[in-house]
Structure formats: C-alpha cells, structure tokens
C-alpha cells in the first residue's frame, strides 16, 4: 500500500543526513527551513513548529530509538509533505506527554499536514513503523539521502 504516501510530497530532497545540532530548537529550525525553501511550508511554519514543540513536545521513545514528530497547524502549510532528518549525534527533546522527561532523538519526521483526517491511514502506518522491530534502526543507518527515501517508502509497502 505505497499509495498511503500518494497525497504526501516526499523524495530524497526532503531528507537531511548527519544533521548537526546542539539543541532541539536548532534541529527543528534546520529541518523546517528545508520545507520552507521547497515552498511546501509558509514562512510562519518555523516559528509555529518551535512554539508548538515547547507547548506540546513531540519526542517519542520507541522500542529501538527515540524519534520526534514535530508538526503544527495546517494554516502554515502549502502542500502536504514529510521531511526526515537523521541526526549526526542525538539531540535531546522532551518526551511527548511529559513536562520535562528528556529523550535522545536520532531521527526527526517533520510533518506538514493539511488534511489530517484524510491522512489517518498514513499516520497510523507511520506509528506502526515506530513499533516494529527494526524499521527505525535500519532507516537511521542509511548512508545516502536516496537510501533513506527508499527505506522510508518501504515502511508503507508491506502493510
């Protein structure tokens, strides 16, 4: 069911490898700027992402490694897309649903979503990948942006 990704703009140009950042704000700003440069997100997207992360953090400690799924409201989005960053060194994010529990995030999935109800299957498939045995660690080990893109698309194929 690779068609789960049909409504989402995604290719290797939205993948950042070895992203270097000391703090989550820096990591978020760098990945958000990729979406803005592509015209996928509006200028208001980055500040909205940062504000949102402070209010409702998106770090998620999964079975294998920690990820973050930063996102914000549809009004800051031109076109639905997902951008992925593999961090060179893990960066601390606050765990979702907590005030100050920190998790060392290795992979960021930044969601630019306009119609979330139509994306229910996509979102569920993404969460399913988070729960599965070695999908995330395989993704985190990819050496090129193309490999990351192919690996990520593979998340949605065997469902």
């Amino acid at each position: 069911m690779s068609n789960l990704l049909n409504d989402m703009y995604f290719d290797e140009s939205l993948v950042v490898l070895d992203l270097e950042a000391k703090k989550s704000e820096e990591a978020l700003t760098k990945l958000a700027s990729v979406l803005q440069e592509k015209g996928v997100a509006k200028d208001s997207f980055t500040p909205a992402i940062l504000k949102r992360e402070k209010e409702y953090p998106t770090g998620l400690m999964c079975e294998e490694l920690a990820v973050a799924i930063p996102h914000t409201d549809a009004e800051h989005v031109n076109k639905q897309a997902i951008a992925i960053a593999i961090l060179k060194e893990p960066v601390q994010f606050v765990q979702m649903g907590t005030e100050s529990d920190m998790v060392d995030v290795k992979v960021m999935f930044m969601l630019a979503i306009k119609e979330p109800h139509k994306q229910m299957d996509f979102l569920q498939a993404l969460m399913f990948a988070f729960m599965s045995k070695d999908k995330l660690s395989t993704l985190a080990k990819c050496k090129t942006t193309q490999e990351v893109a192919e690996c990520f698309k593979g998340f949605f194929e065997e469902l």
Partner: protein
Amino acid sequence: MKNILLACGSGICTSTAVRGKIEKILDESGYAGKYKINQCKVGEAAAMSVNYDFLIATTMAPQNLKCPFVPGVCFLTGVNTQASIDAILDLMKQ
C-alpha cells in the same frame, strides 16, 4: 454508551494517529457500537470534559479536568501500552 474524548495539541494529528488503535482495542473487547469518540484540542478538553466519561490524550493531563485521564502516548510508540489498555477497559466497565 460511553463518550470518549480524544485529544492532542492540535486535536488532529497524533489523536488521529492513535484513534484506530483505540477503536480496535475497544471493538476486540466487545464494545463495538457502545462508545463514541470525539477528538479535540487538549486546550479545549477540560471545558468539554463534563460531558465525557474519560479523556485519552497524547499530552499531559490538562488542569481542571472533570473526568478520568488516560495517557495516550504509548499508543504511538507501542511502549508500555498495557497500563493504558487496562485503564481504558476498566473505565468502560464502570
């Protein structure tokens, strides 16, 4: 009929992602057709909570909540889900 409120920061993203999982748990436990789920922003949840049996959210429990709270982040990660599943099934029995 149980009225379940499902919330996240925006009321649309992670709450949408966990909704299917929660529906599956309820349906497989024999509650198909015996519950209604509404999604909202967690900022609105406290004010709405008087009309609901419980709240599941991917955020912290909001202040001034008038119904029981069940943490929902585990349904995104698959880590430590049992406590929340037990809490939900317990609340369905009440």
